[in-house]
């Protein structure tokens, strides 16, 4: 097993061979990947050293201290957090070799083609079709043997689709089976001429997300992850990693949404009322407790005692973000009647606590919807953590084509 001392030695060797000051950013990142220091818990030859995940911090600290460039994880979050673990678990050796390095380095951005207009919380009801066509030839220059799949359908709420080179995609391969069993998981080439990306303007006026229309898109069978019909199981790997990646970092006191309103309160005594004071204090306490609960979760993970508490963190932060930003607009009074800018734009990065109070209020409405609605998360807590029985269902043993739509 690779230990901290060995990782430190390897990191120093990397820095000596490729001094950050005199090395091109991408070249440095490639060298870091090849040294196995990209994600140390990944296998050797794929950017890692089969080391414990917790030791990544040793490498990161050393590289940060040396001023080494980062791979800008916020820009490539879907690739790092969702596509990579899925490819690692289900991809062939060829796919791992082909995709993981440019993914980690950031040369190729990934997006996720899961949600559809008719399949949100009930993702398994998705209608995008994948039909086998052994006769045709793929447009993709990277086709392997085994024929093609032809994809038709529409995906929605796709972040990064307009800059993505590749996508992870789930589509229906057998409409005659019950919905969970007829799904297959693919890697989709976003440069295929059948892929059309349109910005999806949202409640804040801008377009963080896209709609993606798929018309006769061809995918080589070699770009399938997992067996035909096993796509739902494969997608669980992706979604599990999504929840791990949400709410992972340590937050200081008054970090997050409570920060701006607390500053406003201190700097603008003329805005204060007794009513807003009581509500602010209640929310301040709840935000501090949520922060502590997140800290406790991190301590549990670090001590190797992962608990189910993670499922609750997103619920807490969604509600707090909404209530705090709502109070802030109210507290600001006349100023709360104004909004920064309604111009349609395509933000590179999204900061829930950025811009003005109106933006924060509107953007946080998405916090209880994106990545699993709060209602679905409450069901998950109730059933998987508390062990309560599920509601009676009438969709489990019915062929997908016979479901009500």
């Amino acid at each position: 097993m690779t230990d901290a001392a060995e990782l430190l030695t390897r990191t120093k060797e990397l820095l000596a061979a490729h001094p950050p000051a005199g090395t091109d950013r991408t070249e440095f990142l490639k060298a870091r990947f090849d040294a196995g220091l990209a994600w140390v818990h990944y296998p050797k030859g794929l950017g890692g050293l089969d080391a414990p995940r917790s030791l990544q911090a040793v490498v990161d600290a050393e590289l940060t201290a040396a001023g080494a460039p980062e791979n800008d994880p916020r820009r490539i979050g879907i690739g790092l957090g969702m596509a990579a673990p899925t490819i690692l678990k289900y991809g062939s050796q060829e796919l791992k070799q082909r995709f993981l390095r440019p993914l980690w380095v950031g040369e190729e951005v990934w997006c996720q083609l899961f949600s559809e207009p008719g399949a949100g919380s009930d993702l398994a009801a998705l209608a995008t079709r994948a039909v086998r066509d052994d006769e045709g030839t793929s447009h993709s220059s990277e086709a392997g043997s085994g024929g093609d799949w032809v994809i038709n359908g529409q995906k929605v709420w796709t972040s990064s689709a307009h800059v993505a080179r590749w996508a992870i995609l789930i589509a229906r391969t057998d409409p005659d089976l019950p919905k969970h069993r007829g799904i297959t998981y693919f890697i989709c080439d976003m440069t295929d001429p059948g892929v059309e990306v349109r910005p999806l303007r949202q409640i804040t006026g801008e377009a963080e997300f896209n709609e993606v229309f798929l018309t006769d898109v061809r995918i080589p069978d070699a770009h399938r992850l997992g067996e035909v019909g096993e796509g739902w199981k494969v997608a669980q790997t992706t979604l599990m990693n999504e929840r791990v990646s949400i709410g992972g970092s340590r937050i200081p006191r008054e970090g997050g949404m409570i920060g701006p309103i607390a500053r406003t309160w201190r700097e603008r005594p003329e805005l204060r009322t007794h009513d807003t004071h009581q509500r602010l204090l209640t929310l301040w306490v709840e935000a501090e407790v949520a922060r502590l609960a997140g800290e406790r979760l991190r301590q549990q993970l670090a001590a190797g005692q992962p608990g189910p508490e993670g499922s609750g963190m997103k619920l807490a932060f969604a509600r707090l973000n909404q209530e705090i930003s709502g109070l802030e607009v109210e507290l600001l009074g006349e100023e709360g009647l104004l909004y920064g800018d309604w111009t349609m734009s395509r933000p590179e990065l999204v900061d829930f606590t950025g811009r003005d109070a109106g933006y924060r209020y509107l953007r946080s409405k998405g916090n209880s919807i994106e990545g699993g609605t709060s209602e679905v998360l409450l069901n998950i807590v109730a059933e998987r953590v508390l062990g309560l029985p599920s509601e009676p269902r009438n969709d489990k043993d019915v062929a997908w084509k016979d479901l009500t739509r």
Partner: protein
Amino acid sequence: MNAQPDLLYSEAEDDLRAAVRSLLSDRGDTAAVLVRAEAGAPYDPELWKALAGDIGAAGLLVPEKLGGHGASHREAAVVLEELGRGVTPAPYLTSSVIATETLLALDTETVEVAELLAALAAGRRTAVLAVPLSASPYGPLPVDAPRVTGVADAAVADVLLVLKSDGLYAVDRASANVEAQTPLDLTRPLAAVTVGDTARATLLADTATAEQAVRRGLLAGAGLLASEQLGLAEWCLEETVRHTRERHQFNRPVGSFQALKHRMAQLWLEVVSARAAARNAADALATGSPEAPLAVAVAQAYSSRVAVHAAEECVQLHAGIGMTWEHPAHLYLKRAKADEVALGTPGRHKEALAELVGLQAP
């Protein structure tokens, strides 16, 4: 900002919890608690002997050189979680935490203080502060009060710690007049205490030391009360989940209805959060962190509401049976509601917090 607080439970703390839980399940199930409470004698002297003496819970806050076990608020918090889970009547919070912490803030070189501390730590005697259970660490204290009402556990305490204008006195309960009051919470009896002249009392500290010490005792009590509230809430949630899985209406378990599941999931989230807040307060008190007042105010402002919410949901989701005298839910509701008032309401703690974090009132 200080070093990160340790919000987990140590192995020793887990062992202590197991010992206390095993004792309480042997001696203190809720049916027995109810029978004793109805008889007007809620305390079980044998249970106290085992908890305070055999397990050594009474001496957790007291250093070894003063006859205690040299542990900390973290361990005492674990004991309180279990006492909350069992809604157990025992003078632990009042004697082993509040009175003990108060005495520890005095000059422990004094023979009278040292002897009393050693006796409390060994579980041979108990002491309570002669202040109302509702007294917060921040509010006015009853000094020279002819009669103090709402004093918790006074009926079983051997010693009353009484604030006079010239200092803090230890008074034998036998020499004071203690009249039982009818409490909302049957498991933590209250009494009105009248102390006559101080001829038969022992002066423990002068005025300045006394007030600071009492406030420190109340702060520790408030901080660790959050752990009792956590234990109460945890029991209420577990029992509610168990009941709604078993109870059938409309030919299905009532716990399968989403309207109920969401309420229990929400409670679970509150319990998880209350645990972080309670651990944070216990750790801050244990390490003597300068942030202890803030951690205590946060824990109290939050956990009081969680315990009451959990107990109220417990009654509602048990429905008819939850409204009966026979089912223990009412013991938890009454304790939770009394705990909300005890040692400062959530509002008092939020007022204190406003000063501590600079979010002043208009």
